[in-house]
């Protein structure tokens, strides 16, 4: 029983408190770079790294920052981390760097990172802040991974993954026969439709949970 409850808790955390589909944070990047799973995984890892490090630093300086200028301080911390992560990506995985383009720099203004710094890390010690960063980062990564799976499979008919360091293909699997794929999903409008459907699914699940808990109390 308790195991089931815990499992539900995890699912709830992933779906209802999902930063992308539940709270609508960080939508820009999740729409733009999810054309294939390589980009989604790369972006997910980059955001998670920045999020965890910024949570650590913000939490470490939380007692030293004057209240009036806390936002600029956090932004400088985040911008420094993003510059470092961007340079690392450019040095080791140039193909990923060119695929993600401006969106690496735009991690600075990704609302998830500043949001977590402001709402969580600035009030909590380092330990819980790391945990919060990791869990938020993972649920962001899973969300954009879900979007990119839908878009890549429907758009190109092929599910493939390649090694970002060498550009060698790891595996490639054709799921939809040639001529039946829907290039629509590779375009901008496909991104909006995919996002709308996934967000609707999350909100349907939320309604379902709310109804179930109402019935339970009666």
């Amino acid at each position, binding site marked *: 029983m308790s195991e089931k409850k815990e499992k539900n808790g995890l699912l709830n955390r992933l779906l209802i408190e999902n930063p992308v589909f539940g709270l609508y*944070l960080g939508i820009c990047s999740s729409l733009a770079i999810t054309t294939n799973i390589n980009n989604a995984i790369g972006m997910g890892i980059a955001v998670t790294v920045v999020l965890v490090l910024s949570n650590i630093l913000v939490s470490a300086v939380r007692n030293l920052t004057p209240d009036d200028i806390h936002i600029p301080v956090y932004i400088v911390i985040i911008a420094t981390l993003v510059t470092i992560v961007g340079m690392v990506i450019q040095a080791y995985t140039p193909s990923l760097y060119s695929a993600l383009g401006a969106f690496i720099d735009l991690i600075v203004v990704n609302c998830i990172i500043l949001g977590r710094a402001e709402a969580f890390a600035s009030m909590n010690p380092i330990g819980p802040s790391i945990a919060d960063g990791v869990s938020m980062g993972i649920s962001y990564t899973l969300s954009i991974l879900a979007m990119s799976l839908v878009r890549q499979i429907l758009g190109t008919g092929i599910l493939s993954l390649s090694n970002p360091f060498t550009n060698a293909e790891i595996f490639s699997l054709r799921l939809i026969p040639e001529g039946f794929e829907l290039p629509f999903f590779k375009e901008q*409008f496909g991104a909006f439709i995919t996002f709308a*459907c996934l967000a609707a699914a999350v*909100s*349907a699940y939320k309604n379902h949970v709310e109804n179930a808990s109402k019935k339970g109390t009666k």
Partner: protein
Amino acid sequence: MNLFTLFISGMLINNIILSKFIGMCPFMGVSTKMESAVGMGLAVIFVVFCASVLSWGLYYGVLVPLELEYMKLITFILLIAAFVQFVELFIKKNSPSLYKQLGIYLPLITTNCAVLYVALDNITQKYSLIETIVNSIGVPAGFMLMLCIFSTIRERLRGNDVPKAFEGNPIAFIIAAIMAIAFSSLSGLV
């Protein structure tokens, strides 16, 4: 590049919301009412224009001579944050009525990706000062146009019967998808 072409392509063809997905957060958040859409749109045009021109000057005037190009991200975001703060104080002191209207949108602009994106894009595309000025008016004008069109559609949507799961933001994304299809047909314009 022809300046007029640059303006039109920034505003309509490469519309920053529908083709580049930048500035989605305020787009979804503020687009429920026409009045707030206009207020936000004007504030964004003003901030994007000033911040881009300032950061262009800072990049070519300070960072390039000192060979500190890699610092551009940190410099620009600080500049934007400071500029927004300054504008907020200035408006608060000189025009309380305007502050009341714009007040809540100004802090939001710091985290609007559009401002940072335009500032960085001007540098990446190696625009001259004149091109930077034209681009930094055209792009946010496209943002405002989208915001206004979108808010009127959403106002009409309020009384309609939307499937429960799609209520709120999901249906707004469907509308955005349809608008993106409509706008993609403009790509042959230039």
